[in-house]
């Protein structure tokens, strides 16, 4: 029996592209975890395993000259905005070939040419800048939108409120995408948020808001498209809350003592956005293997590319502080 087309649904072909991209992000981040545990990637790394549908659903709804600001959990956004996995992996290895030339690392991924205004190590750090970029688009009458990603924890910080207030006051073309994964590092939602429905934060500013299931890429894409159209059309900013799940610790190596032991296993069974999409697409084993082989090759290639990269020279750190 032919499947009934869902209203506003995206084509099967596009959904397959989403699947491929989400799987690429997943395999990329699993590789990052593996290389971290192998001792090749020092420092702090935050992966967004489980949140791929938000990155892909929102970024695929963008136009090329739209801009984003990301968070400390930035690999997915960065890949989805078009940065090549080689450049991203090289950045994690601190190489000159990296997207931030080896000076940013996981929490400061930049790709100015592709409209990535940067990841942010400080929670809420990117929101005011997105208001400014959007204000600039408005002043110049350019049909572009600026998008800020942030987590539920960021809605408690001052810059979130200042940014939403300014954005609505000036009716700038901005979309604020809250990746609501229910955790601020190791603090659960009920210990840090006085309300359940974060889309209500927008009410205080008279801002349009939507809340969608963030594990369904089709739903995210549809909601993001609508929010972007609203902003681009001059009707003002939108707060888009995507309820999602962090199917991993806060950072790579997090023992997660704060989380019930069986929770992750259960959520991985029921809330994996890639599995959900796979089921929706009715992919054959052959399809899955083909896509799997393709993304694994890209990821392996990115590690080779990164390892063969150029180490930055200490004296270069003294450059570019000033013009």
């Amino acid at each position, binding site marked *: 029996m032919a499947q009934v087309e869902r209203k506003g649904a995206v084509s099967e072909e596009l959904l397959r592209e989403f699947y491929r991209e989400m799987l690429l992000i997943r395999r990329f981040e699993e590789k990052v975890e593996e290389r971290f545990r192998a001792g090749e990637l020092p420092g702090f790394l935050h992966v967004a395993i489980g949140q791929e549908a938000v990155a892909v659903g929102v970024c695929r709804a963008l136009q090329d000259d739209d*801009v984003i600001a990301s968070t400390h959990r930035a690999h997915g956004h960065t890949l989805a905005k078009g940065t090549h996995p080689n450049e991203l992996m090289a950045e994690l290895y601190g190489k000159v070939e990296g997207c*931030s*030339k080896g*000076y*940013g690392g996981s929490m*400061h991924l*930049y790709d*100015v040419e592709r409209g990535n*205004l*940067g990841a*942010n*190590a*400080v929670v809420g*750090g990117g*929101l*005011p*800048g*997105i*208001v*400014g*970029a*959007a*204000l*600039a*688009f408005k*002043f*110049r009458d350019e049909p572009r939108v*600026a998008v800020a990603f942030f987590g539920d924890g960021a809605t408690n910080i*001052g*810059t979130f409120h*200042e*940014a939403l*207030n*300014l954005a609505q*006051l000036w009716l700038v073309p901005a979309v604020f995408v809250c990746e609501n994964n229910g955790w601020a590092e190791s603090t659960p939602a009920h210990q840090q948020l006085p309300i359940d429905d974060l889309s209500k934060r927008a009410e205080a500013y008279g801002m349009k808001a939507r809340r969608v299931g963030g594990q369904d890429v089709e739903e995210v894409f549809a909601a993001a498209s609508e929010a972007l159209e609203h902003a681009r059309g001059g009707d003002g900013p939108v707060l888009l809350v995507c309820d999602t799940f962090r199917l991993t610790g806060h950072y790579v190596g997090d023992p997660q003592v704060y989380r019930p032991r069986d929770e992750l296993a259960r959520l991985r069974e029921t809330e994996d956005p890639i599995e959900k999409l796979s089921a929706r697409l009715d992919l054959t084993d052959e399809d899955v293997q083909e896509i799997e082989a393709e993304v694994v090759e890209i990821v392996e290639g990115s590690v080779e590319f990164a390892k063969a990269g150029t180490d930055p020279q200490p004296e270069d750190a003294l*450059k*570019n*502080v*000033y*013009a």
Partner: protein
Amino acid sequence: MAELTLVEAINSCFHHELQRDDSVMVMGEDVGRAGGVFRATAGLRDRFGPDRCVDTPLAEAGILGTAVGLCMAGWRPVCELQYDAFSYPALDQLITHVGRYRWRTRGGMEFPITIRMPYGGGVRAPELHDDSPETYYVHTPGVKVAIPSTPSDAKGLLAAAIRDPDPVVVFEPKLHYRTMRGEVPEGDHVVPLGKARVARMGSDLTLVAYGSMVPLVERAADALGGDASVEVLDVRTLKPLDEQALLASAAKTGRVVIVQEAPRTCGYAAELAAILAEKAILDLRGPVLRVTGYDVPYPYWQIEDAYMPSVERVVDAARKLLQY
């Protein structure tokens, strides 16, 4: 040349720079309709429109953060923060973004932001309206800092800051906004960043100061008149510092007193003293002395005169040093 007050000179700079370059814009609380609490931005909104002179809510992190985004999109925003201490909520954006973007992106992003604020005491204002927070800014990599002491420099340094490709913080001595008048060149007037000014030539002792302390040390120099030939060096740009001018004056006089209004510990005077210790030790005839504020919050008006460096304290330090 027109004779203007210090704040009129700033206003004249804005009218010229906004006319000269249409990517220059001003933003801050009350800068538009009200023309700024001190009238520094008077007339800009009427002349250039609300998109070039943007009234904002009182939200300093939001103001500077918005400027970050505007900058990325090709504007040259000039942010007014109403008072010295009101800049602290914006320090987050300044330290985490403004000073770092060029470095992080390896020159991929220009950051021509100007941040200006009235600073300093002596106006009988309550706490948090009289701070001298320049050191926080000087200490932040990627940020330049200028402090004018005359109407002419107020216009010229602000013009240089606006045209500079890097973030520049300009502190304006609010004590002298209206109490100081001086000749100010009309039209184009730029005082390059990184150039100190010898405000007075002398051979026995150098008094080093900036901003509101410059007129004070000039009075101290007058008071010392008969006893010593005093040179006054107005630093003008704290970062980048005109080190050559500092060392040249120290080489000439061999005695240096540095005066700052800010609290003492790790203040800008300490940096100047360290540079002199490293590079001018053989030229010095005595220790480098500092006359500074105290390591306390700026006190309320009944006792603020006791906090502020005075002519007497500067003269005392100078006399002590002249005895070496």
